[in-house]
């Protein structure tokens, strides 16, 4: 699961007001090579919750992302490279996503997060 997806996921448990962002518990991180696509990065930038991305990438062991980011930084190739790496090249293979309000864990196996809710959580 890439951080791109993590940045979109939110906890849907009944009663939770703000299930975003999910905290990450890392067991295994894999780095995969992905083709660099500037257009996609530019298009995604406004949608990304930057703080959540920085937090998540740090938990995964990547500390290069700046704390704050503005769209003007997209003109810098160096920044784009880091953004690209954090967004689509870091994969959480094994671990868990944790709901920030209830602490409920969503296990991640083989890169697939299990977001199935129990009967009482719907």
């Amino acid at each position, binding site marked *: *699961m890439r951080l791109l997806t993590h940045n*979109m996921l939110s*906890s849907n448990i009944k009663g939770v007001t703000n299930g975003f962002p999910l905290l990450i518990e890392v067991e295994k991180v894999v780095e995969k090579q992905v083709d660099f696509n500037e257009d*996609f990065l530019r298009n995604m930038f406004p949608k990304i919750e930057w703080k959540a991305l920085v937090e998540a990438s740090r938990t995964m062991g990547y500390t290069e992302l700046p704390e704050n980011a503005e769209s003007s930084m997209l003109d810098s190739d160096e920044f784009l490279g880091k953004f690209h790496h954090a967004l689509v090249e870091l994969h959480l293979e094994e671990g868990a996503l944790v709901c920030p309000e209830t602490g409920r864990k969503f296990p991640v196996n083989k890169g697939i997060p*299990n*977001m199935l*809710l129990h009967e009482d959580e719907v």
Partner: protein
Amino acid sequence: MTSRPELQAPPEIFYNDDEARKYTSSSRIIEIQAKLSERALELLALPNDGVHRLLLDIGCGSGLSGETLTENGHQWIGLDISQSMLDVALEREVEGDLVLGDMGQGLDLRTGVIDGAISISAVQWLCNADKSSHEPRIRLKAFFGSLYRSLARGARAVLQVYPENLAQRELILSFAMRAGFSGGVVVDYPHSTKSRKEYLVLTCGPPSLSSAAPRGKGEDGESCSDEDSSGDEDNQSVCVSDRHRPRKKQKLNKKMKGREWVLRKKEQRRRKGTAVPADTKYTARKRKARF
């Protein structure tokens, strides 16, 4: 004719390891799913600016539909309830991120982040009450409500469905409308039982000319798709005739050689000079199968 899978077992049980493997290795299914995905992507009417978008594949299964999205350059997140199907998707090394989840529980996505959503042959599963807490209405409401929230303004969702009957189709459509979607149903090849396919084309936002459902492909040999200029003010619709599909459709139609064809052929031969029996009410009458 085999019964509908939806009537046999809940999807996470029906699509077990064996079924998942069978499904994904059937060339017929692969071909159909690819065609459906291409058509859904077409109906999604994403602006043709070459920008790669983030799409959602609801009920992505083993990734057959997702591959079409990747081929068209998009990033996608796939959701499915069957671990077995997702395992096959992993084996096939699909590009999209996979999530194990139940669409009837609501999509776990942030507001307004998705540029478009497709679903191939999945949403009708919501209409079955598999567990006692699975009241279909609640699930449909949760699904469409969360889908509406997760789509960016003006984004579309194209859901190819196999409703069991008219009532089911109406049910699905009514919950989509209640969630705030505008749009309608596009039916391709409505008169052919085999080729008939239904797509719910839903737009996130108030109804406008640009969210009017495009025309389905029919028997007139020409397939028109209203091209949306959803950004433009004038909302002109352009008719594009697809050169490839009509030919295929006409070929399929020629299966039956009806009375008309026989009479035409007899007339031709008479003109040539061969002795041809007279045309009576018995000409080209349907014979018993054993004949």
